[in-house]
Every structure is written in structure tokens, then in C-alpha cells.
């Protein structure tokens, strides 16, 4: 008997789960089909079937689901991410309803969706969702434990290798994991900054779990973004911050102005959407790097 093939969109939740979904399924003997990195064709396929006003990354996500269904997978994995056990920190509504949205749009029938429910607490993702996923595929708890243990080895974030040159200004890339780690979505910002002589800093995987508290934010990723920004703002090894803001992202829209008002280091907000101009982005990055180089070394750090 052939193993079932499960498609995983290389998009939003794949990056948020740090690739653990694919690793877990492979550990359980499932044939995993990971959609290719986002490209223009995938994005346009998603854009065609998605609502205009939905955020940029979710349009790309829909394109990944469509790609997988075109490639004969038995089911597509779109988890339901519910929220924090404390009832105060949540994913945004669109991320939490991804499975409902792809069904409602007619992109994927409900019986070809695999949608285990995941919750998180102060330590990060709770394991119940993985066990539910394993159970849906007929795997025992022991088999899931073994697969989880194998896939939880820390790995560098996909798409944006951290580089650090002693003399180069270090730019921290701030934003949701699925924006920072998806090169097409963020306009290859890491590559462009490296070409301009910068070192790149991104959040280490799982650095903040899912529920940084004390930011006053209900939305998990907005809270994460705010926490990271505060940390990098006082980190002597970071010279500037590039905030990657996807078009029409509500949670980040809440904090964008707050960040620009309160961050003391050079901060540039790049709004990412399908209408962006690569030339315009490059010019802004060059100006940003110039700005950092004009600052005296003593002013680069904040005591």
C-alpha cells in the first residue's frame, strides 16, 4: 500500500511552525509534497481566487494551496491555529480561519483538508495538535513522540541565512516569519541588503514562542514584532531595523506608527504588496544604508 501524500503550502503556517509540520509527517512515513517557494505564478493563482482586500501573504497562501491541488496530493494540511490558553493572545482572524476560507472559496473541498487544531501557551505550540494530526493519519502517540523529537532540532530560518561581518552595518529584519522567510514575498530584501554591504539579523526560530506578554497586544504576531523591535532597539550589535509590513495587515497596522514613534535606531518600513516596484525598493534601501553609515558609531548603539 502506498503512503498517503499530504500537501503542505510553503506559506504562512509552514514558516510559523518552523517547518515542523513537514518534518513530523515525514517522520510518520507520510509522503510530503511541499509547494515550491513563492513565485509570481503561484501568487497570481492565489490572487485570482482571493478577495481583493485580504492581506498580501494570504493571497500567496491561496496560490500554494491551488498548486498542491494541481499536483495530485491526497489532502492538504491547513491547521486551525486557535490562540493562547490564557484567552488573551490570538492569531489574526484571517490566519485562524485559513481552512474555512479555502473551503468557502471553493479552492479545496473539506474532505481533502487536514485541519488539526493547534493552541499555544507561554512555551510555544502545545503538542496536542501534533497528536491529533498523527491520530488522523493512524499514527500512535509513541510514533508522534519519536517523530517530534527528531524534528525539533533547531535549524536556521529558511530563506534568510544570518550573516555577520565585523565592519558591515547590521540590519535586523522585523516582521512575521512568513514574510521575513519568504524571499519573493519580501522582494528579496535580505539579498539586496547584503549586496549593499550589510549583515542581516533575523529572529532565531522559536525565539519568542508564540505569546510574548506585556506588550498590551491581543494579536500574537504583533506582540512578537513589538517584542523583537524593543530588543533590537537596545541591542548594540544592531544598527538599523527594516520593518516588513504586508499590505493591509491589521495587527501590524496597529503597531506600525507606534514603532516609528518609539524606536530610536534607524527604522524603515517597507510595505509589501503586489504593486511594489523593485527599483523603488532598491532606492529606499540604498538611502537607508546611507543613513546608517552617516551615524557615528557611538550613536549606532543605544545605552
Amino acid at each position, binding site marked *: 500500500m502506498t503512503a498517503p501524500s499530504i500537501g503542505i503550502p510553503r506559506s504562512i503556517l509552514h514558516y510559523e511552525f518552523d517547518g515542523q509540520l513537514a518534518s513530523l509527517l515525514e517522520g510518520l512515513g507520510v509522503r510530503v509534497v511541499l509547494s515550491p517557494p513563492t513565485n509570481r505564478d503561484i501568487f497570481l493563482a492565489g490572487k485570482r481566487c482571493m*478577495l481583493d*482586500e*485580504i492581506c498580501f501573504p494570504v493571497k500567496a497562501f491561496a496560490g500554494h494551496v491551488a498548486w498542491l491541488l494541481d499536483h495530485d496530493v491526497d489532502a492538504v494540511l491547513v491547521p*486551525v491555529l*486557535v*490562540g493562547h490558553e490564557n*484567552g488573551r493572545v*490570538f492569531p*489574526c*482572524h*484571517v490566519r*485562524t*480561519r485559513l*481552512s*474555512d*476560507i479555502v*473551503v*468557502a*472559496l*471553493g479552492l479545496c473541498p473539506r474532505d481533502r483538508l487536514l*485541519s488539526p*487544531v493547534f493552541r499555544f501557551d507561554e512555551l510555544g505550540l502545545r503538542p496536542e495538535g501534533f497528536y491529533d494530526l498523527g491520530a488522523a493519519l493512524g499514527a500512535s502517540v509513541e510514533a508522534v513522540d519519536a517523530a517530534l523529537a527528531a524534528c525539533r532540532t533547531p535549524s536556521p530560518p529558511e530563506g534568510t541565512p544570518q550573516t555577520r561581518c565585523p565592519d558591515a552595518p547590521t540590519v535586523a529584519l522585523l516582521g512575521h516569519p512568513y514574510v521575513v522567510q519568504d524571499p519573493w514575498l519580501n522582494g528579496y530584501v535580505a539579498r539586496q541588503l547584503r549586496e549593499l554591504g550589510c549583515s542581516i539579523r533575523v529572529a532565531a526560530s522559536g525565539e519568542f514562542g508564540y505569546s510574548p506578554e506585556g*506588550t*498590551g*497586544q*491581543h*494579536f500574537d504576531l504583533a506582540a512578537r514584532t513589538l517584542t523583537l523591535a524593543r530588543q533590537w532597539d537596545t541591542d548594540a550589535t544592531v544598527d538599523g531595523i527594516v520593518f516588513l*509590513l504586508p*499590505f*493591509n*495587515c*491589521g*495587527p*501590524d*497596522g*496597529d*503597531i*506600525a*506608527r*507606534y514603532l516609528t*514613534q*518609539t524606536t530610536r535606531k534607524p527604522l524603515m518600513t517597507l510595505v509589501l504588496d503586489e504593486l511594489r516596484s523593485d527599483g523603488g525598493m532598491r532606492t529606499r534601501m540604498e538611502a537607508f544604508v546611507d543613513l546608517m553609515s552617516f551615524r557615528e558609531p557611538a550613536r549606532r548603539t543605544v545605552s
Partner: protein
Amino acid sequence: MRYFTFSWGKNYIAVRALLRVLGHDLATPPQITAPVIERGITLAHPFLCFSGKLVLGQLQVQVDCGEQHMTFMSSLGPEACRCADTSEYLESLFGTTCPAFSAHRIGGDGVGTALENLRSHFGPRITHAQCMRAYAMFFGKVDLLDKIERQCLKMFHRCPDPARIRALQAEAVRRVDDAHRIVSLWRVSRWFDRVAATLPKRTEPPLARIGIVGGEHILSELDSILMRLKRLAEHGILLDWRGGFRCLAHSDETRLAPLKSRCAEYLAPDVSTSEIFSCTHALDFAAEGYDGLLHIYAFGCMPQTAAKPVLQRIARDAGMPMISLAVGDRFAEEGLDNRVEAFVDLLRSRRRSGKVAV
């Protein structure tokens, strides 16, 4: 002490009642007018939902007038609109021009946390009895304001004298605001029923029945921003909606469970967000044979953006026409007429040809 807040339609009156029980008062929020909206748009980030911009505009105008202590009612249930309660964000916006600005969230995840929350803002001497009385007045007024709004809207389609309905509504709202005891609210309710019963009525049935679903905040503000839409009722169209402030203000899991079960085909039951209300109400309208569904939401509203494809699916499955109106920065009410007229024409022709929702 005097607090200030945003309007939530007329529901600020209920917040004022709660504060009065605790010995405080609430300023009357400014009407949502073009300058207030413009103020909010200027102040907010472009990606903030339009409802948020309305709220910020109303708050900023009051800060400009010297108000300092903001209070806002959040959910009494586990989740409502998650966009609420970003106190740091509010302080970052208003704290620079008003150093004494403070934001107080009232509400909580049940009676226990509601009391705790009240004490943290209004002092440790707040008793359990005061808390119960404050919330009794709050919900009493929320319910009565809701009843007045709903019944007046329904009366418009069958009463040939809309001016009398408007006068009745204004007087009823004034009496609700003046009521200081539960028994007074009961008297206002009885008075409203008596007067409403004396209004002249048309005998013919409505030309079409339209169910309205959408963002609870934006629906509460229809008097300010979509009055033109409400005038459909004066032309014999029955408009109806089932949501309201109470849904959000008291949406614990016990109350949500039957709604989740009702829309289990469309929404994952583990998530407790406000799009459940919109989808349940849409299913109810379809089951009751309404002619069409009108979806109104603030551009950028995350719950309604997530709900929109699901509502479209519900309408398609039920064979019920649906129109979605996103109200945003560039929304012009004048442009609404053609779309709504075309929609109403469609409903009338379907009705004439005997097509109804299934």
C-alpha cells in the same frame, strides 16, 4: 470623575449608566461627521480598519476638548473584537498631546474579572453588589436601546409617517439615558410599546425582506454613516439584523456553543471569533426565506474580511442574493444608491418570478 469614550451607536448611554452607578459620569461622544472621520483617518495607520479610524477620530476630538480619562467597554466573554484593548497603542497616540491621558478597559471574562477590572480602575472600594448593579443597568440599557433601534427600523417599512417614528425614537433614547433604576427602564419599555402601537400602519406586505449582517460596530453607527441605506425602509423594504452590541459584550462559550453548532458546516468550531455571529445570522435569514443578504463591514475589519468568503458561500448555497458593502476611507454614500437600487430591483424581480431562498 468624568470619562470619555466612543459612541458605539447609542451604546455609550449604557456605558454612562454603568459609570453612574459607580459615582462617575461620561461625556457625550461627538457625532460621527466628515471632520471627525477625517481626524481619525489622519491619526490612524492606513491599515487600521475604518471602524478603528472612526473611533480614533471621536477620541481625538474629545482629547482636543480637554478630556483625559478614556474608558471603553470590552468583551464580557473570552473573545470579541480582538482589535479592542490595545491600551499601549492608544496611549502612544494620545499620550504625546495629553500627558494625563489614561485608558481604562471595563468588561472582563466573567463577573469575577469584571469586578477585578472595575476595582483596578475605579478603586478597591467597589463592592460586588455595586458591580452587579452597574452591569444590570449596563445590560438593561443595551437591551432596551437595541429593542428601540430594531423596532423603529422595522416600523419604517410599514408606517406612512416616518417623522413620527424618528420623534418616538429620539424621545425613547432620551428616556433611556435619563433612567437611573431598572424599574425605570421597564417603564420606558412599556411606554415605548404603547406609543409604537398607536402609530399608523400600512397593510401591504414589504416589497422585499433584506437581512443585514456585518461588523457590529459599523452596524451600530448606521445612523451616522449610512442613513441613506436605512431610508430603504421608508420605501417599503423590510430591513432586519440580529446582531448588536450585546452579542459582543456577552459572548462567553456557553452562549457561543449553539451558534457554533449552527454554522459548523462553514466555520471551524474551535475558534470563538465574532464572524460566528454574522454567519449564524446569515443562515437564519436564509432559513426564514429572506429575499437577500446585505453585508456591511468596515474596510480592513479582520473578522469580516475572514467572514466574507464564508458569507458568500452561505448565500450561494441558499440561493440568496448577497451584496457586500465595504465602508472605508474612500467610501462615498452617493455611490451607494446605484448598487443598492440594482440589488433591490434584483430582489423584486426574483420575488415576482417566485424565486426564494432555499
